[in-house]
């Protein structure tokens, strides 16, 4: 029997499409999480009220931020799950090596981020519809009118943030796969740093660095750059590891 040559790009494509079919349940969980987030959002984020004589005005604020936060958590956990034995073993049933397995995982996480971004942005409209149908508000308005350009840049940055959270999850997953001690070390490290840095602004600075940036281009560089570095470390970590133990 003659031997077949192998095209690495083809294998990555095949694995990617295999993953999309095999991991549909991950998207079901995403929808459930987003619906729960919409439910939480219904309570509103704030309220102000005033009255003059017998006439009163109360303004209730609603926001889709919770949906976005929940979707980030979902992206984070999904990435960790992809590094677990259950998911990696399905890769190595067919043609695979470290490189194709990791790259197809990253491609899958990117697509998951895109889908997560679309649905979480649309969830805001769901929120509005629910408001219109089930709540007896006298008047509804968006706080700001959003132009198409803003919407698109908002959509893209949502993708980048989700992708970055999946990169963090992927690295944590690879670390714990490499050594089970990290299951203890990582939470201890996070809690410990929260305690140590309680007085300093370092945690604020980090979140400011990533989240308080109005320039689209700068957000793009920061998030995609961070994701790239994190994925690279993950790939180096998983290199040389045995599979199907």
């Amino acid at each position, binding site marked *: 029997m003659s031997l077949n040559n*192998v095209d690495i790009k083809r294998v990555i494509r095949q694995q990617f*499409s295999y993953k999309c079919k095999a991991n549909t349940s991950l998207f079901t969980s995403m929808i459930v999480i987003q619906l729960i987030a919409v439910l939480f959002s219904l309570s509103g984020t704030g309220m102000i009220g005033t009255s003059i004589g017998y006439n009163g005005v109360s303004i209730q604020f609603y926001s889709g931020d919770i949906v976005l936060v929940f979707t980030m958590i979902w992206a984070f956990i999904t990435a960790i799950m992809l590094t677990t034995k259950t998911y990696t073993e399905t890769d190595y049933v067919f043609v695979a090596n470290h490189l194709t397995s990791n790259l197809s995982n990253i491609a899958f996480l990117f697509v998951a981020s895109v889908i997560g971004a679309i649905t979480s942005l649309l969830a805001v409209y769901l929120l509005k519809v629910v408001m219109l149908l089930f709540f007896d508000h006298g008047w509804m308005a968006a706080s700001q009118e959003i132009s198409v350009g803003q919407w698109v840049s908002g959509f893209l940055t949502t993708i980048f943030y989700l992708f970055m959270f999946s990169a963090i999850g992927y690295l944590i997953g690879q670390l714990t796969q490499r050594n089970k001690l990290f299951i203890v070390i990582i939470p201890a490290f996070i809690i410990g740093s929260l305690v140590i840095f309680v007085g300093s602004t370092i945690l604020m600075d980090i979140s400011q660095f990533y989240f308080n940036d109005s320039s689209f281009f700068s957000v793009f560089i920061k998030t995609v750059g961070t994701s790239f570095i994190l994925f690279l470390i993950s790939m180096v970590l998983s290199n040389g590891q045995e599979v*199907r133990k």
Partner: protein
Amino acid sequence: MNVIECNGLTKMQGNHTALDQLSFSIKEHTITGLIGRNGAGKTTLLKILAGHWKETSGEVTVFSKRPFHNLFVSVNSIYIDDQLAFSTTMTLSEILNEASRFYPNWDKQLSERLFNYFSFHENQKHDQLSKGRKSTFHMIIGIASRCALTLLDEPTTGMDAAVRKDFYRALLRDYLDHPRTMILSSHHLEEMEDLLENVLLIQNGRKYLHLPMDELKEYGIGVTGRTEMVRQWIHNKKVIYVKEVGKNATYAVLKREGLPLEKAKQLGMELTPVSASDICIYLTNQTKGGIDDVFK
């Protein structure tokens, strides 16, 4: 051409030496039975050949390449055992469809025919299958993928006798039409005798024998006779196994090579051939005495 070459292959798992200085080579287009007791290192060897596990020391090549995470080896070989993991959301026919996209030599017609012959349903899920049914399904993937190197690790686990028979037949038929290199590890050597060309017998991670099947069948000879006579006769000879049978009679298995068999016959001892399966069991016997001795 040698498809597999191992030279001093050693695999450590913690402090345990799973494979110990294993050296052998396997030629193209042969079916080799990998035989050994539980824990002999069969799975370890196959996983190293498949590129899943890394050798600790020594040299191993598959298609003249080091197999560990080698994509070329991966596309030209397939490793089948009873623990293949599949998505719980995919149906069996979807899984076969995906497999066909990964392996260039995949025979779709054959996989569909086997699928129907063993009466699988298209919409069944992999985790709903019983142990034997899983093995049967994996076997379909193993055969239809037509990989130049097909590694089957105890492929018949859980299969009933009828399915096992069908499986060996299917394997042989497809092998004759599309010759490839196969390694089967199994406990059922007696069932595979007609299928195997070579036998690689390993014990405690070491190579014990690597022989063509025909030579293995002739490897040993059984001698039965009065105990004193047999005991005296086997003295200074290569004894593989001795057992007392009945009153004042002993059965001994010896290496046939260079034995004065005519003389044994003249002494009134009965000579019987030893099957390949039995000789493997006797050769790899690690226990002192038999299981009966435990209960004494």
